[in-house]
C-alpha cells in the first residue's frame, strides 16, 4: 500500500519536474536558432560607441549590486543593533516606521524620486540606482538582522561593557562575529534580489552604457528595429547564467536565507 502510494507520488513529482524544465529548454533552443553558437558570440561582440556593450552591462550589474549590498549591509546591521541592544526614545516608532515601508512598491515613488535624482545631479548614474535599490532592501534586512541579534544574549555585551567595551566595539567584536550565518544569508538573498531587479534600472538608467544585465533583452531583442528572437534568447540565457551558477553553488544558503525572510515576517 505504502509502496504503491510512494510510486504514484514519485511519478507526480517527476512529471512536475519535467514540466518545470520545459520552459528552460525552450528558451535555450530558440537561442541557438539560425546562427547556432554564433548568436552568443554576436551578442558578446555587439558594440556601442566602441564599447563592447554586454561585458559593460555585466560590469554595470556588478557595480550596482556591489554598491547596493555594501550600503544595505552597513546601514541595516547598525540599525538592527540599535533596535536590538540599545535603549533610546522612539525606538519602537522608528522600527515600525522602517518596517512598514516593506509593503510599499518602489515604483510608487517613481515621480518624486525622478525629480529628486535629477535635482541631486545623479541622473543616469550608478549611485542613483544604488541608493534606490538599497532603500528598497533595507527594511527586510533590518528585520532579519534584528531577529538574529535578539537571539544573542545581552549578557555577552554586558560582560564586554564591564571590560570597558564601547557600544561600537561591542557591535564589531561581539555581535558581528556571532552573526556570521545571518550575514551570509542576507548577503546571498540580497545578491539575487538586486542582481535580478528590473524596475529600478528600467526607470533610472537612462542610456545603454549604464544598463544593467536585466535590461539586455530589451536591447538585443531588436536588430535594426526588427524583432530578433535568437539574439534575444541568447542574451536571456547569458543573463541567467550567473544566478544559476550562484544557485547551484549556494542552494542551501539561498533557500535558508529566503525562508528566514518569511519566518520573520
Amino acid at each position, binding site marked *: 500500500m505504502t509502496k504503491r502510494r510512494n510510486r504514484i507520488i514519485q511519478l507526480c513529482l517527476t512529471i512536475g519536474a519535467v514540466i518545470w524544465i520545459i520552459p528552460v529548454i525552450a528558451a535555450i533552443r530558440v537561442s541557438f536558432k539560425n546562427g547556432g553558437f554564433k548568436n552568443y558570440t554576436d551578442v558578446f561582440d555587439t558594440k556601442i560607441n566602441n564599447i563592447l556593450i554586454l561585458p559593460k552591462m555585466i560590469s554595470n550589474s556588478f557595480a550596482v549590486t556591489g554598491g547596493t549590498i555594501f550600503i544595505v549591509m552597513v546601514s541595516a546591521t547598525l540599525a538592527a*543593533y*540599535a533596535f536590538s541592544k540599545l535603549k533610546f526614545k522612539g525606538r519602537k516608532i522608528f522600527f*515600525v516606521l522602517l518596517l512598514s515601508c516593506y509593503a510599499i512598491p*518602489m*515604483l510608487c515613488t*517613481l515621480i*518624486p524620486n525622478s525629480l529628486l535624482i535629477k535635482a541631486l545631479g545623479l541622473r543616469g548614474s550608478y549611485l542613483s540606482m544604488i541608493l534606490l535599490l538599497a532603500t528598497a532592501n533595507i527594511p527586510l534586512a*533590518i528585520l532579519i538582522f534584528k531577529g538574529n541579534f535578539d537571539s544573542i544574549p545581552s549578557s555577552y555585551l554586558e560582560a564586554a561593557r564591564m571590560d570597558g567595551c564601547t557600544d561600537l566595539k561591542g557591535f564589531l567584536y561581539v555581535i558581528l562575529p556571532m552573526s556570521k550565518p545571518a550575514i551570509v544569508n542576507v548577503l546571498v538573498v540580497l545578491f539575487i534580489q538586486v542582481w535580478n531587479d528590473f524596475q529600478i534600472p528600467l526607470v533610472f538608467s537612462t542610456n545603454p552604457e549604464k544598463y544593467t544585465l536585466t535590461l539586455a533583452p530589451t536591447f538585443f531583442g531588436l536588430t535594426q528595429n526588427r524583432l530578433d528572437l535568437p539574439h534575444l534568447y541568447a542574451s536571456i540565457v547569458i543573463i541567467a547564467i550567473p544566478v544559476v551558477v550562484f544557485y547551484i553553488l549556494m542552494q542551501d544558503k539561498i533557500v535558508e536565507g529566503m525562508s528566514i525572510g518569511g519566518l520573520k515576517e
Partner: protein
Amino acid sequence: MKKRITPYLYILPAVLLVGIFLIYPIIFNLLSSFTKWKGFNFGKAEFVGIKNYITLIKDPVFLRDLRNCLLFMVLTIFFQMSIGLILTVFLNLKLFGYRLMETIYFFPVVLSSVVVGYTFLQIFEPNFGTLNTFLQSVGLEGWKRMWIGDAKYALIAILIANIYQWSGMGIIYYRAGLANISKELYDAAKIDGAGFWQTFFRITIPLLKNTHVTILLLGTIGCLKFFDLAYIMTSGGPANSTEFPLLYLYRKFMRESNSGLASAAAIVIILLATILSIGILKVTGNDREAGENKYDKKKK
C-alpha cells in the same frame, strides 16, 4: 549625554535613506495627487482638490487593473499554497532523487522576472511557440490560440508565468514551517493508525498556520507590487486587458506625463498595501511583526 545620542547615530543611515527615498516621496505624492500637473515642472502644478481621485475611480481601465490585481492575488496565492504544500509534503518523503527535484522546483525563484517573462513569451508565441507546436503535434490544432495576443487568454498566460516563478517560494516557506512541527506528533498519529492523508489534513495543514499567514501576506504585497512580467510579456495589452495598477501609474507618468493622476494612483496603491497588510495581520491574529517577536518577550 553621549549615551543618549549614539543610538540615533546607529539608525541614522537607514533612517536617512528610507526617509529621503521612500517617506519623502510618499508625502510629495500625497501633495501632488491633489494637483493638475503635467510633466516634470512642479511649479506649474495647480491645486484641483480630489479631482484626480474622482478621475481614477471613474476610469474603467484603473478599475479593471484593480480587478486584475485582485484576481492575481486570489489565484497566485491559491496555487502557491496548494502546489507548495503538496510538493513540500511529497518531497519530504525523501523518495529517490528528491534533492534533484528540490533543485528543479526552487530554481525559478532565483531567476529574474526578465528571464521568466521572456521564456514564457516564447512558450505562448502563436506561430512557433512551444505550446502551439505541441498542440499541433498531438493533433489538437483546434486548441491553438493567439494566447498573448488574445485578450481572453493573455492574463492567464501571465498568471501561469507568475505561478511558475513563485511556487518554489511556497515550498521554501512550507519546508521551513514543516521543520518546526515536532516529529513526535507524526509518530503518535501513526501509532493511532492515522493514514497519510488524514495526517496531512489533521496535523500538517492546521499546524502550518503561521506559514499560511506568511504566504498570504507576502503574496498580497507581491501582487500589489506586480509589474515586471506584465510589462515584459504584454506591456498591459491587448487593449489594456492585462494592465495592473503599477503599470497604470507607469503609463500615466512615463508615456502620458500626467503626473498628478499618476500620483493619485500611487497613493491609492500605497493605501491598499498598508490596509491589506494590517488587515491580514489583525484578522489572523498574527501580530508577530513590529518587534514583538519571541526573543523580545523573553528579554522583558
